[in-house]
């Protein structure tokens, strides 16, 4: 029987390496998209708030005038 242990180990390590690298790539891409999404959402919410009178904050409270 020929000694082919080296090749067998190389194949098992190479296959595991390819799978692990792909999972790491998916994870990294997922995290990057999530961060960009959070930034875009913050920016959109800030823009929406700024478009309101007084920037959406410290709005003057209007009290109903009491009849004299």
């Amino acid at each position, binding site marked *: 029987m020929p000694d*082919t*242990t080296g090749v067998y180990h190389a194949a098992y390590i190479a*296959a595991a390496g390819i799978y692990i690298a792909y*999972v790491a790539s998916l994870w990294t891409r*997922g995290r990057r998209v999530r961060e960009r*999404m959070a930034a875009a959402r913050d920016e*959109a*919410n800030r823009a929406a708030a700024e478009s309101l009178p007084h920037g959406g904050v410290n709005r003057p409270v209007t009290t109903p005038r009491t009849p004299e």
Partner: protein
Amino acid sequence: MTSVPLSARPARECKPLFGWLFALAVVAVIGVYIRAIYFTPLEALQGAAQKIFYLHLPAWLAAYIGVGITALMSIVYLWLHDERADRLAEASAEVALIFLTVGLTTGPLWGHAIWGTWWAWWDLRLTLTLFLWFVVAAYLILRGAAEDPAMRARYSAVLGILGALLIPFIHLSVYFSDARLHPMPVVLKPSAPSLPPEMLTTLLLAFGAFTLLCFALIRARYLLGERRDALAELEMERDL
């Protein structure tokens, strides 16, 4: 365009990419590695290199599943114009490319040990599998190059269907020519598999584990695509 506030929208993009299915697949693949390495006997003529079989063949099966789903979803997209079908086709193609790469990496290593050569262009199966790798890679490059989503989906769907047409030729290629390195099928053939029971059990477990891994990766890649599309929508709305 609807005026639903961004903060009030359902957070579909927040679903985790790797769920219980992925965890189950990882456990199954680790189990197959342990069984193949420690609990499966050595083949008398080839020695340890024959154990590459338990990674090589399931990788091809998973690749065929990926290419098959790509073709099926491409047909569904061309018929119904549903963007979810296009997204699933893209996810399956990318995962198929990973399994094809594993097959094309482990194969020459095994071939060098047993046949005495890394590659032979006159072996139809080797050449056709490399051609399939190029078709799937071209599918993904085409998707990256086309900007218009409808055009991208339509053109890549045609390529996705054409790629799957290679699979029967690859499987049957050993019957077409006598000048070949690949043996006749020992498992996927009309008669009973010609393998000892311990080896057949390991192989069937490997088929199950890598098929599970294939589906788990396709799911993760699909969710990533969904998240990416949601981001594109959000950025487009922000820039308006």
